[in-house]
């Protein structure tokens, strides 16, 4: 079973995403901010990180940069998908610079979410 972290400070979105991805047979671990993501990643291995950009304590952009800078090659290469209402009008290039592979706009379209998660967890074999 593929393991996915969902970092999102809104518990509504977090619970919903969890539920939907669990039905798709993923194991979902929730995190409330970027620091929690780093903590969890430090303890265990994951296949994908879904991350809100706008989070307290450590936002998604900083978190993505921190992950990419990890010494462990496997951990630093984990795919990151941003889930964002894009309040700061980041461009895709901005995301790429921070190490974010792709993004899903808010409000969430769940067809889009499921498809994206499938895509990134499947190509994550190498």
């Amino acid at each position, binding site marked *: 079973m593929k393991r996915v972290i969902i970092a999102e400070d809104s*518990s509504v*979105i977090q619970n919903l995403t969890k539920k*939907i991805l669990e039905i798709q047979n993923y194991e979902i671990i929730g995190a409330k901010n970027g620091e929690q993501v780093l903590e969890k990643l430090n303890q265990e291995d994951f296949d994908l990180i879904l991350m809100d950009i706008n989070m307290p304590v450590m936002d998604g952009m900083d978190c993505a940069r921190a992950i990419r800078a990890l010494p462990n090659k496997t951990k630093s290469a984990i795919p990151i998908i941003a889930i964002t209402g894009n309040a700061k009008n980041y461009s895709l290039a901005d995301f790429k610079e921070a190490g974010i592979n792709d993004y899903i706009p808010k409000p969430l379209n*769940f*067809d889009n979410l499921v498809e994206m998660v499938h895509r990134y967890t499947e190509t994550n074999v190498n």
Partner: protein
Amino acid sequence: MKLVEDNIKQSNEELAVSTVSSTNKTFDKSDKDKLGTLTNLHESLEQSKVLSVAIDVNGKIIFINQAMLATLKCEDTELLNRSILNHFLFEESESFKADNFLELLKKNDFNESITARVHLNNEKFHFRLSPITSKNHNGEIVCVTFIGENITERRKVRDTLEKTNAQLKELFDNSSDLIQIFNSEGVMRFANEAWKNKLGYNDKDLETLTLKDIVQEEYWDKTKEKLKSIAAVENFEKFETVLVSKYGKNIFVSGRIHCTKENDIPIEFRGIFYDTSERVRAEKAQSLFYKIANVTTTSYNLDILYASIYLQLNSILKIQNFAVALKENSQITFPYYISEAAVGEEIPEYKELGKILAEYTFERRKPLMIYEDGIRRITKTKKLKIKGPLPFIWLGVQLIIEGEQKGVISFHSFRDRPAYNHKDLELLDFISSQMSMAIERKRQEIQIKNQNARIKAIFESSTHEIWSIDRNYNITSFNQNYADILSNFYDINIEDKLWGQTRKKHEQQFGTSWIEHYEKAFEGDVVNFQTELSDITDNTIWRDVFINPIQNPDGKVEEVSVIANNITEKKLSEIALAESEEKFRTIFESIQDIYFRCDLSGKIVMISPSATEILGFEREELLGADIGKFYNIQSEVDNLFEELSAQKSIRNLDATLSTNSGEQLQCLCNVRMIYHKNTPIQIEGVVRDISQLRKAYEELKSAKDLAEKSLKVAEKSLKVKERFLANMSHEIRTPMNGVIGMIDLIASTKLDEEQQDYVKTIKKSSETLLHILNDILDLSKIEAGKMELRSNPVKIKYTFEKLYDLFSRQARVNQNSLYYHLADNLPNVVYADETRLLQILSNLTSNAIKFSKSGGTIHISAKEIKRTNNKSSIRVQIKDSGIGISDEDQKKLFNSFMQVDNSITKNYGGTGLGLAISKELTKSMSGEIGVHSTLGLGSTFWFTFKAEIAPGDVTIEDWTHVESGFTDEFENKQPYLLVVDDNSINRKVAGQILKKAGCSVDEAISGKEALKKVHNNKYDLIFMDIQMPEMDGIKTTEKIRSLGLDKVPPIVAMTAYSMEEDRSRFLSQGMDDYLPKPIKAKDLISKVKDWLKFEPKGVDSIIFAEDNSDDEGLIINQNTLSNLCRHGGKEILRPLLEDFDRETQEQLVNCYKALKNDDYEGVRLELHTMKGSAGTLGIERIAKCAETIEAELKKNKPKDLNKKLEVLNERFKEFQENSTKVFDDSIVN
């Protein structure tokens, strides 16, 4: 005896110990040299109490101490310097011989103590002497000093005891009792002669024998227990056990055992037994007889019997080899035998030997016990060579059944000649007689059983019911068929003893008639009768019953047997025959046609009574008369006969009948030849008077002609109307195209407010006009029967989602809420015409919205009301809270051009055709439409339709899945388009709208020009009119595609044939998309948007503004929730909305807090999150509101933020109210 021996042994041991200890203490041999001179030794011994005497190497006594002299009661002079051998008589042992005493002495070769006897002064002494050798410096022996002990007294005692012992032993040996002694370990110490003889062991065997070896295995544990208890209480007890002889024979013994103990530890057991085998055998033989008698009755078959007999015998005698030989047709077989194969040597196959011995037994005609040599003799005379050993002993007895020698039962042993004796033979003889009887009985039983089984099989295999009954009305035997009848028709379980076994009860159960029949049979008569029987379900059977008296040898009848046979079929066919005869007769009597029969000469032999009525002749006049007298067949009568012979029957023959009054009746007849055994015998026929029918037919024909004529006229006029409508609609559409297009264009120019208002009105009017036009066209089409419903797979859920999508906003604009609920029992996918279904739904929904007061709620629900096979009947209802409709108006509602209240028509708009169209459409979907309403309280419109349920594997494309078209480089480039239309107005409208939207547009007036332009230019998209002279749009498209361009641009058809079926036709003919005329600016531009991903500009006219004005979205978009359910399941909904409720409340509180602290960014962050989650859940109004405020916060710090948050708070309350509604109505499926 035991005591004697014990004492001897004990004293010996004591002596040995004391000698050694004294030696160790005083004269350790290794210390001897150091000790100094011999004299020292003798000096010390002189005064010692130890007896001592010393000799030199020649045996001369050189020293004798005081103690020794005192013992011997003599002076030292009597002994000193004399040879020791003169006075001391040494007892010889294995290592010591008196003869070479001196040799041994010199060699220093004896150092064990020796016993010596001394005769002195008529007195005898016994000493035990231990030698101490003294050597000189050269190591030569100089002296041997004996240290001694007087054992004279002990010896005396021993001798006496030995004597007594021998006497006792003799006594024991002569006793016939079995005497044995064994120690606590079970090691045998002694056994008397009788014991040895009985058990077959000799003295040598005894040395290694233990108790366990001689106690029969099964008795060992018991014996051990018994010995323990004897050892514990030390008392004589009656003791019984079974010993086993060397040859394995069991010996039953009884007697006493005494246990000797020392210091409470059992040392020895002495047992005195007598052999009780004979008694036991007698007892066992007795019980054996009983048991064998018992076995013969309990054994199922002979094999078990033989085995049981063997087991019983074996429990008394040890039998390793047992055989039952039977003679049948002078052949000897062995149905049962047991053979041992554990005596070391291979036991030969017994059968050959067994046969000879059996034959020998037959010859001698008496029980035989034959020993090995006898057997050998017999085999020799019979010239039989046997490999391997012969039995030591063989015992055999013949089995005599009904005075005939039928077999031999025998056993033998390979182990032991005295294994068996004549008593065993007697036992066997006795058993043989029992066994013969048992075998005989068993054989008879088996025979009887077989016989019974045979009879039973016959009894049961019959289809008849068979039973017998005695005078007391007890059923004495019965077969299963009878049991079935009782259980099926009388509800009687035959095994149940409670049912009627008396005459009275029997009468109650079966009725008096049965009792009468039985009684008659008991008198000796055979009774036969038929009887009818019905079960509770009125299943009736008929039975043919025979009751036969069973006569005893004395002629009395105590029982009767009954056989009953089910003759229902036969009986029913008899009854049916009688009934059909009756029926036939009735028909014959009441027939209106004339039925006749005549012989081959034409003489009437039978005629139905109807002939009298029709022809006016009396029956007597007709019978026997020639048929030709009344019957005029148009063809020749002779020919008729020939034809009949050839064809056997003639049908629908025209004829006339002459009546008594001379009238000629028009008739139609069927005539048939009747055969008997292939020979024609008679002719029968049916004649029908068709004069009246003819007349009626003529009249009907003229009426039909008339009708056909008028129908043709009507059809023609209908077609005219249809064509008129079709043409007209097309003709109207074309100018409408110009009107509507131009309105859109005007709207996009700079207008003042007044002008804008006028344009809006024109636009609304033209749209209404178009709507009416479409409705008229639809209705006329339906009425002309031209509306063909398609049958495609339709996902019902999607249909309603589309409906919701179409109307939820409109409802919102009217301040109404729209909800829909789909019942769980609805089929997933059905075959239906979704466009038409949506048309009905849209008509009803738009009516409901139109006629609802603001703040009203519209509920749409659907459920399945019936399902037969794979057809589903579905009922949909649309309930509004509008003005309601009076009963009177309800009746008119579904008629054409009817809107309820003319005075308010203007308020509500519409053609009034919607319901009429809906009614027609539901009719063509095999459904109905109707309304329930109360004035002022709203209306519920409903309709039903039938649809075939599609199989589960039919795939439906998700309607929300938007076709992507091209996602290419045009995003930021000006699109280059071609508009092809022969009509200049249309070209202008389309061209202008597109140019306004920022596209570059070319125009072509014909297909030909279009081809040229496409060839020369690279267009991104082509709009193509369909109806053009010379080369129409479809043809042009075909040609464009065959030009061989690198990339053919998408081609969108434009046509006034605004009907759904056209769309698919165009798509199938090579067009990529379809746009109905009249062209609306919005639709035209959205096509460009869809196909080219182009964001148009400069068209923010009133028309577009109108669509987006104050659209705050829905409180809760049901479709969004429905989509969530699709991914996450229904059950996630409630917790999700609760989550949202809680979180949003928190966020609002946080916003207010942040505002207090002037933390605008804090407010913005909360709103940002809120926007995301609200949007995701389809809580659009909150999402929109949060978004607006967030956008403002990004730009500046609005002063009225508090007010704005209040609005948001209002929105949230609104959500809270409605969210519960979502669940109350359970409208989300």
